[in-house]
């Protein structure tokens, strides 16, 4: 065990994928089979009621400094016993110190500059050091047929190929999947044990049901909804033992589970039976939601600042259209919505697709109503715009129609598309700051970017000259992130291949190629671009005040920015009042915003990732708009030093920007240039004079208009600023207050104070 599964018994070094498969098989085979009392689903992610998944080959080691203090830290404390602490300190973390993704990439590339920049944490954040699991497997196939046909397929293919590498791939798949079956067998034995115990005292039937189900799934196909959900849960546990619980997503579950629901219903004779069945289904799905919360992501304190309050972001997608373009809204859609409404929990991260003209108004109204009750979920997507966006970048129409939200909001074609949709958080504002300072980043206090000219030396006679400098810095920074992402991607091929996940995709089995090596049908990488509003507002200020109207000169503006506008109050007021802002639906600002979007799209799209696919940009920010903002200087937009950027693709809370103008602005941006989706945050304060019904109707009308205009996505916080302020003062009264940050849900009282303030300060729209 000293070298894990790196060598076989003869001392021969195993290929990475085989090593990974053997390790996974060992873990699952030896995993304690637990069936919690009162749980409707057998199996647990960890041995604790709520456990922290530790992936030392990823970012787990960042917890090392906190092993003594983690139980008492302010945000997201974890209980830890002495045995665990010793185990991590003496055995686990030392072993993985040189074997994790970050270190492997650094050593293999001789401490490259792009990784040094990554480790400053203010220019970009590369998610591959944590995970590359932002994807959705082909669950319908496995639920329908089970794992045995996949194992048999692997065996058959292994026996028909001559290439050793290919043989190894198929062996690895088989070994990994057999680990899952061992775990399911052990759960069944546990169910039988509990059944025998219960016969003496009572409810044996409960355990018998588990034993019967586990005799069948996940080895074979599910026959009932209950079997399908149990099968899904075991697969989910297994996948999280291979891939980090960060953004791995569940997919279009209403559509996928509906056939089982219908089949069950057909066997029922009376209305009473059917009514009872629906109630049981609500309970089952509710149970599944709670099970999804039996693990939390490992977050070091530094992560609390970068990703405050984020869960594992296990996205579930509802509604929209099916692969033929017909409405996919069904009974299970409404069951999932009912559960979402009843539980109001942050994870799973609920995402609903709405296709204008195909999905009904009643459905949209119901989505809004659930948002109203929960205050923050589900996020609502425009199916038409997203499908159009995916088609424009060469996804087949039938595939594009099957898209599912991943992690926060990003689209993935389940079982075909390995898109690591959150490969990086890209701070576009850093490029703007460097273009203002001839390549020097103010916080880092060093020449990071290229020399694009000094304002003090009149390097920019026209606005176009300055925009060109900004574009060059943006390109420079983007290329650093691309090199860095590719380097981490190659490290994953060695450190963290994914035999289990690969077996649940179209492509890897046919090509004998792991997902990390480009086995999938679609192989993109997703980028989250942060700070669009701040950039557009800054560029607009420069264009308007310096070049068009000559109200000030660039040197003065630059000085004011450097001085955080202290002693430049007049100029600051001028910027606030006289420069049109992003979100005001001013044609000139809209054109500039589209130009920035086009620029960043082109820069990324034209580069290739380590799997041969494109880089796709989106405009959402998790909570990095706060982290990056609090580490950045003042901006020409008038935003002061260390203030958060605006979240996702959301206008600043300023004069001239209201809900309607914001809707028109965001909806006017071209979806095909934002294929990794957007997060448009809308904080709505219901009018106390309106009834619940009236408020839902009004918000629905706004949402409908937005989607009909072509807006891609919108997410709500239906809560007043006063309530949020009160929650800051009296957190105990608001333990379950759910908020949408930028793409994900979080409990407001558990957020970092900077993040809380950012949400408080968001513009409160009245309807």
């Amino acid at each position, binding site marked *: 065990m000293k070298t894990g599964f790196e060598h076989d018994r003869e001392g021969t070094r195993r290929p990475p994928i085989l090593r990974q498969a053997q390790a996974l098989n060992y873990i699952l085979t030896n995993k304690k089979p637990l069936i919690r009392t009162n749980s409707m689903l057998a199996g647990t992610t960890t041995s604790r009621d709520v456990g922290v998944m530790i992936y030392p080959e990823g970012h787990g080691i960042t917890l090392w400094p*906190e092993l003594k203090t983690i*139980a008492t830290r302010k945000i997201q404390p974890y209980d830890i016993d002495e045995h*665990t602490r010793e185990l991590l300190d003496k055995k686990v973390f030392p072993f993985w110190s040189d074997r994790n993704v*970050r270190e492997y990439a650094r050593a293999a590339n001789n401490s490259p500059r792009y990784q040094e920049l990554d480790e*400053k944490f203010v220019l970009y954040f590369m998610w591959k050091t944590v995970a590359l699991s932002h994807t959705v497997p082909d669950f319908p196939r496995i639920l329908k047929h089970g794992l045995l046909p996949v194992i048999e397929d692997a065996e058959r293919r292994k026996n028909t190929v001559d290439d050793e590498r290919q043989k190894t791939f198929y062996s690895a798949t088989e070994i990994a999947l057999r680990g899952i079956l061992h775990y399911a067998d052990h759960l069944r034995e546990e169910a039988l044990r509990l059944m025998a115990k219960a016969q003496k005292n009572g409810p044996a039937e409960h355990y018998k049901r588990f034993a019967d189900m586990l005799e069948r799934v996940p080895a074979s196909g599910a026959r009932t909804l209950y079997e399908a959900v149990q099968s899904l849960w075991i697969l989910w546990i297994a996948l999280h033992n291979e891939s980090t619980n960060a953004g791995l997503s569940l997919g279009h579950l209403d559509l996928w589970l509906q056939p089982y629901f219908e089949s069950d219903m057909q066997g029922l004779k009376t209305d009473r039976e059917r009514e009872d069945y629906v109630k049981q289904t609500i309970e089952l799905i509710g149970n599944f939601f709670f099970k999804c919360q039996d693990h939390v992501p490992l977050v070091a304190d530094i992560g609390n600042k970068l990703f405050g309050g984020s869960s594992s972001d296990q996205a579930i997608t509802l509604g929209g259209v099916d692969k033929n373009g017909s409405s996919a809204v069904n009974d299970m859609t409404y069951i999932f919505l009912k559960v979402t409404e009843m539980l109001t929990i942050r994870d799973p991260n609920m995402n609903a697709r709405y296709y204008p003209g195909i999905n009904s108004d009643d459905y949209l109204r119901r989505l809004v109503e659930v948002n109203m009750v929960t205050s923050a979920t589900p996020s609502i997507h425009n199916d038409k715009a997203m499908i159009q966006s995916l088609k424009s970048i060469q996804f087949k129409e039938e595939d594009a129609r099957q898209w599912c939200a991943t992690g926060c909001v990003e689209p993935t074609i389940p079982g075909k598309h390995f898109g690591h949709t959150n490969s990086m958080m890209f701070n576009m504002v850093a490029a703007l700051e460097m273009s203002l300072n001839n390549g020097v980043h103010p916080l880092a206090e060093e020449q990071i970017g290229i020399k694009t000219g000094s304002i003090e030396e009149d390097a920019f006679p026209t606005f176009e000259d300055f925009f060109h400098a900004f574009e060059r810095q943006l390109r420079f920074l983007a290329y650093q992130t691309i090199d860095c992402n590719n380097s981490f991607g190659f490290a994953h091929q060695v450190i963290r291949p994914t035999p289990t996940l690969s077996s649940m995709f179209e492509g890897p089995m046919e090509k004998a190629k792991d997902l990390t090596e480009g086995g999938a049908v679609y192989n993109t990488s997703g980028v989250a671009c942060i700070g669009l509003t701040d950039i557009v507002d800054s560029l607009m200020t420069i264009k308007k005040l310096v070049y068009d109207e000559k109200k000030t000169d660039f040197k003065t503006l630059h000085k004011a920015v450097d001085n955080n506008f202290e002693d430049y109050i007049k100029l600051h007021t001028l910027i606030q009042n006289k420069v049109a802002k992003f979100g005001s639906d001013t044609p000139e600002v809209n054109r500039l915003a589209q130009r920035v979007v086009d620029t960043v799209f082109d820069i990324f799209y034209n580069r290739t990732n380590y799997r041969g696919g494109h880089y796709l940009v989106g405009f959402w920010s998790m909570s990095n708009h706060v982290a990056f903002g609090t*580490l950045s200087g003042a901006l020409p937009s008038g935003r002061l030093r260390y203030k958060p950027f605006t979240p996702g693709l959301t206008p600043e809370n300023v004069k001239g920007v209201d809900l309607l103008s914001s809707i028109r602005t965001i909806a006017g941006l071209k979806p095909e240039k934002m294929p990794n989706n957007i997060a448009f945050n809308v904080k709505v304060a219901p009018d106390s004079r309106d009834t619940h019904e009236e408020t839902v109707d009004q918000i629905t009308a706004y949402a409908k208009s937005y989607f009909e205009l072509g807006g891609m996505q919108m997410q709500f916080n239906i809560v007043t600023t006063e309530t949020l302020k009160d929650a800051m003062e009296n957190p105990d009264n608001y333990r379950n207050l759910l908020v949408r940050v930028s793409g994900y849900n979080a409990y407001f009282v558990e957020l970092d104070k900077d993040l809380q303030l950012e949400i408080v300060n968001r513009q409160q729209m009245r309807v």
Partner: protein
Amino acid sequence: MKNDAKNSFFTNPLVLQNIMYVLLRVMSLKFTFSKKFREMIKNDYNTFNKTIAIQTRDKAVKLYMVFHDGKMKVRHGIPEKADLTIIYKSPEIIKEFATLSPEDMLNYLLTNKLTFRGNLSYLSRFAYLLNNFIPPKTDKKTETNTSAKAVPGK
């Protein structure tokens, strides 16, 4: 004036370097005399044989530690080859660090007050060693309902 003099004394690179040298020497003695402490760098499963350098950006402060076979040696200067170099922005930042708990070290990466060259895992490990040498300074305990149990592996 008195405070200013005190401040400038403690941020004088030479003084700081000597204070740090003494502290790290005490730490090295703890490895020698405390079996429990020593087991953190040498046990049945691993031996931490690495060199960690500490310096300021201007290299006014520069010393390093050599961990080898359960022992730690402290040296002045810059080593020929370090597995990890911890770089403080300035002597003032080192002084600021003295008021912090070691586990906060990674957070300082965010503000660029601290940078490093080398293996980030070793920085984490070194912070934990310090944490066992210097008790945590702040009581961060707050009420929360999200406590979860950390478990090893998966």
